[in-house]
């Protein structure tokens, strides 16, 4: 056990570094990832140590980044592409959905395209338009992609390593407002849960909160606050958005009989819709209340001065818990 305390951002940096050391085929590419080390410094120092051939500053063209990453993967490389902000992934959407996601199946398994796409996503940093969005449902609906989002430093380190090791394309959603949150990382021991397993982040008995990425911390805080009011909330850190580890959620709900799903993305057709629908089907006779959802509104992400109102916070989560318990 050689755990070190480090911010989530640093864990990602270490993870990339280790992956590049272990496998010379791993490449890092994107806008400003080289000399600058990325606008969030996730790739800081990598170009200095691994050279311009492996840490590639690309032209300002997201479709080009993902399209050439696919070509590099076909040649045997394992590109880790950075999209600078959530709102800028859409120029690459066609390459991701029609090519990256489908190529392995199209070739009846004859080729693999192990591309990881890192996207700093979600809000809470007071940014201008297009810098705070949560587009994960738009990828999770697409077969052939896997979508994950770590909530803490240890998961950041290990999930990114597992994503890079995966032979499938993985969209890796980084909760940007948690970049500076510190946590223990033990880089010596591969942790138990696989990339697509959920984790019980806190045990409880009265209701279950399910979340991923930035909202896990919010849910843990909500659970702590609820405890003071005498309520015991279980928190499931989903970790993976596609596929979802429904078994773990189901077990939790069979115990607590109530579920609230929380994400920043708009509720309408967000990941919570799928979780609500499937868990209702699996736990129909266990549920004392409908699965409730807390998330963004059906509106563009608002200007920074409104994001505290827009983003699910403690109170909105607990309000949903109250409503669930009122059934």
């Amino acid at each position: 056990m050689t755990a070190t305390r480090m911010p989530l951002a640093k864990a990602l940096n270490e993870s990339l570094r280790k992956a590049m050391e272990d496998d010379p085929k791993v490449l890092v590419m994107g806008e400003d990832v080289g000399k600058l080390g990325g606008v969030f410094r996730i790739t800081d120092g990598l170009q200095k140590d691994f050279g311009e051939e492996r840490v590639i500053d690309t032209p300002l063209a997201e479709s080009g980044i993902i399209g050439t990453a696919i070509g590099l993967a076909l040649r045997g490389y394992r590109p880790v592409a950075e999209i600078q902000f959530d709102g800028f992934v859409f120029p690459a959407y066609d390459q991701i959905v029609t090519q990256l996601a489908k190529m392995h199946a199209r070739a009846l398994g004859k080729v693999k395209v192990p591309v990881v796409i890192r996207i700093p996503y979600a809000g809470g940093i007071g940014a201008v338009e297009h810098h705070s969005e949560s587009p994960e449902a738009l990828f999770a609906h697409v077969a052939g992609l896997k979508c994950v989002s770590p909530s803490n430093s240890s998961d950041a380190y290990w999930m990114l390593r597992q994503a890079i090791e995966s032979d499938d394309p993985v969209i890796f959603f980084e909760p940007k407002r948690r970049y500076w949150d510190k946590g223990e990382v033990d880089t010596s021991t591969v942790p138990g849960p696989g990339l697509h397993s959920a984790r019980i982040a806190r045990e409880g008995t009265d209701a279950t909160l399910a979340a991923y990425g930035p909202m896990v911390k919010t849910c843990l805080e909500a659970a702590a606050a609820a405890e003071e009011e005498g309520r015991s909330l279980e928190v499931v850190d989903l970790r993976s958005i596609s596929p979802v580890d429904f078994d773990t959620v189901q077990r939790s709900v069979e115990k607590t009989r109530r579920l609230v799903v929380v994400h920043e993305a708009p509720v309408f057709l967000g990941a919570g819709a799928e979780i609500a629908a499937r868990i209702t089907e699996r736990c129909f006779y266990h549920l004392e209340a409908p699965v409730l959802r807390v998330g963004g509104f059906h509106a563009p992400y608002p200007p920074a001065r409104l994001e505290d109102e827009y983003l699910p916070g403690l109170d909105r989560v607990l309000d949903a818990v109250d409503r669930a318990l009122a059934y």
Partner: protein
Amino acid sequence: MTVEGTAARSATRRSGGTGKRASAARKKKAASGDPELVQLLTPEGERVEHPDYAFDPTPDELRGLYRDMLLTRRFDAEATALQRQGELGLWASLLGQEAAQIGSARALRDDDYVFPTYREHGVAWVRGVDPTNLLGMFRGVNHGGWDPNSNNFHLYTIVIGSQTLHATGYAMGVAKDGADSAVVAYFGDGASSQGDVAEAFTFAAVYNAPVVFFCQNNQWAISEPTERQSRVPIYQRAAGFGFPGVRVDGNDVLACLAVTKAALERARSGQGPMLVEAFTYRMGAHTTSDDPTKYRRDEEREAWEVKDPILRLRTLLEKEKLADKEFLDSIDEESDALAKRVRDAVRTMPNPDTTAIFEHVYADGNALVDEERAQYAAYLESFEPEEGEQS
């Protein structure tokens, strides 16, 4: 056409502005110019002539351009300061690009339409958009605080390159209307790599749309130098799409004005699009969030300092005795007043109401938005006053 054709040759000639040969085409005073670069006013403040871009500004015009540039720079500096003071979340400074923006914008007619990026504060100024309106999105109170149709100046667009297609479509509409207005799409050197920009070139060429693509090549896209985007000068991109491209000294307000005017006239008269590459420099950081010491050398910035767009016009004005103390003092005063006005306006700029989240999502209304608005209102109302504070 041989394998080693013109393209291959020009590929070896990296983008410059530092060329040493005098242009044979230039009639007089063509001192140390780059033959590829249209220049009418040297960094030393000398007027030079160009065979294709004659321009004889009146003293008032010259003074006006000077005033525009100075006030724009002052406004920009004030915004940067306001960011430092925490009044703005972010600022994207135009420092160094005043000539490119003021020059090109002063070539416009009122009925022309502009599609900017997020850095065209000088263009906005010329179009008559109140500078304080530009600050809303950087403060985080809105995503763009002005009515695009009041000044024919579209909102800032953050997704790089998108607006070039909007401009092209708008210009197609202008042509359909039989109007003789023109449209300008601003974009950066980095943006030139986006597929959307190439598609805009294709559509504009195929439909002969009256649009001028105005690229401010400020040498950097955040940390990436222009060579990461193109291995030949950007203005050359146009020829392969079937319309002309020209590179202009982007720190020369006169050349920017003259070239843009010619491009606009061309568009108006049905000759279609044109690409203008204004060769300039981003003197500051990309935005206030950026730290350029990570990726560029001080000497580079210093080399550009002597090419300052305002300095050279000031030299000319003084040499030609067009700027007396009274004039210069009056601009200083105006400048101070502007800064104060901006400062006051920002500090008193109210936060939007929570309900603004749900406004204008749709023009025709929407049941889902209505439902969520109502639910949220009920939620807010459910709080006792003192509970509301802990939310």
